[in-house]
């Protein structure tokens, strides 16, 4: 393992001293990419550490060194532009939960962030870590797909952009290549008339891995016609999953023209659940159907207000 670059001295928070083997703290994305490019498998990219330190504790990973992204200012920023909202990979769940801009423009994402883990986890865990870990139960994944997010990856060969819906290929598997970093999440700014709902079912209210979750985002055009509708489930398949049949059935209609139980059936049929200790496959199909019905009813009855719900099971 290479020694941590000594860097400039001064008041900057920079680890110094004799034995700094194995801890890299780059101050720019370019430096980070460069360090990652030179290193082997054993160098772990460290964001909030809430997944990595659990893996370390359980001895699931071999670590030869850490690449801590904590000093790269641009990764901590939320920028709201006319066309899109840009969220740096190191933005924490607590930042998302509290940001007035996120609550206003992406309320389904804010609601999902607000229910992750506990205050301690939300203060450290990041959007980038949630995405790259790619757990089927990662709570931000379904909202990101529902909002048509694009992930920006940076490597030594440059920058590439991938729709969130194409990023995940299995439990804890993504298309990201060794040597790449996730730098930002880019989300097209939802037009006015976009409404939605977040529902997470778990066995208790805090510190719980979802047994199933749903992010529903509906874009209404003038006159209440559904211009776009995205129903994305978490924890029901190897990857977060959009039920595209919902879009085909409901697009172009008005909410009150839909038979909600018929839409719910699409969810029950479209998911690929497993039996595990958080629920059986049959249970998850039933819940998926009911959740989608409930979400549609809520979206309809509140006429565009955002609802975040944490149901008990």
């Amino acid at each position, binding site marked *: 393992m290479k020694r941590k670059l000594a860097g400039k001295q001064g008041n900057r928070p920079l680890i110094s001293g004799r034995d700094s083997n194995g801890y890299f703290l780059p101050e720019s994305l370019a430096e980070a990419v460069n360090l990652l490019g030179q290193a082997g498998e054993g160098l772990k990219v460290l964001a909030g550490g809430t997944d990595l330190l659990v893996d370390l504790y359980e001895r699931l990973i071999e670590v030869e060194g850490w690449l801590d992204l904590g000093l790269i200012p641009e990764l901590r920023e939320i920028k709201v532009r006319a066309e899109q909202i840009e969220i740096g990979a190191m933005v924490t769940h607590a930042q998302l939960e509290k940001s007035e801009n996120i609550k206003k423009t992406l309320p389904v994402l804010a609601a999902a962030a607000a229910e992750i883990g506990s205050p301690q986890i939300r203060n450290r865990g990041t959007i980038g870590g949630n995405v790259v870990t790619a757990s089927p139960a990662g709570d931000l994944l379904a909202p990101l797909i529902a909002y048509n997010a694009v992930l920006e990856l940076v490597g030594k060969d440059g920058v590439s952009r991938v729709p969130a819906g194409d990023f995940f290929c299995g439990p804890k598997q993504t298309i990201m290549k060794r040597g790449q970093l996730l730098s930002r999440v880019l989300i097209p700014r939802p037009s006015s008339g976009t409404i939605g709902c977040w529902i997470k079912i778990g066995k208790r209210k*805090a510190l719980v891995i979802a047994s199933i979750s749903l992010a529903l985002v509906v874009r209404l055009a003038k006159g209440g016609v559904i211009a776009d509708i995205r129903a994305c489930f978490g924890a029901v398949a190897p990857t977060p999953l959009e039920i595209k049949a919902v879009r085909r059935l409901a697009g172009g209609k008005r909410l009150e023209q839909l038979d909600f139980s018929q839409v719910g059936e699409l969810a029950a049929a479209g998911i690929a659940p497993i039996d595990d200790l958080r629920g059986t496959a049959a249970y998850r199909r039933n819940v998926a159907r009911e959740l989608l019905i409930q979400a549609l009813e809520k979206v309809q009855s509140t006429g565009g207000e955002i609802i975040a719900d944490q149901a008990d099971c």
Partner: protein
Amino acid sequence: MQIRLTVNGEERVVETTATTRLLDLLRTDLKLTGTKEGCGKGECGACTVLLNGQLVASCLLLAPQADRAEIITIEGIGSAEGLDPIQESYLEAGAVQCGFCTPGMILASKKLLEENPRPTVEEIRRGLSGNLCRCTGYHKIIAAVRLSAQKMADKGEGKDE
């Protein structure tokens, strides 16, 4: 490697390694054993400390991540002569049994009351949701936080800025 951090108002320079957890640095190197290790995996909150004013689980932080940070542990709250109103309230409400969760609970309570001097029961539950207690059943802990809020209001502390 060497890191520099402020712990309970005192600047400390510590020789550590890239895989040492902040929890171990506090307990083993600085002998601040008020911070407890329960699960080691972020689930119980026994290891809770304040890092730059934020509630964190010190078992999920590497020591180098706390370089130049300000840390408050339970040893930094109140003193033997003068307990913090929150500590007093925990005693008076009978919210301490084995005491293992108490340091983390007190820090979570402190943070909650700083941000929200008059929390509802639901807000208290949410504020303490990262801290588990195997003994009390939580009712007395919630009562202790309400009592603290009352005490702090009576003393004219903890008002909205």
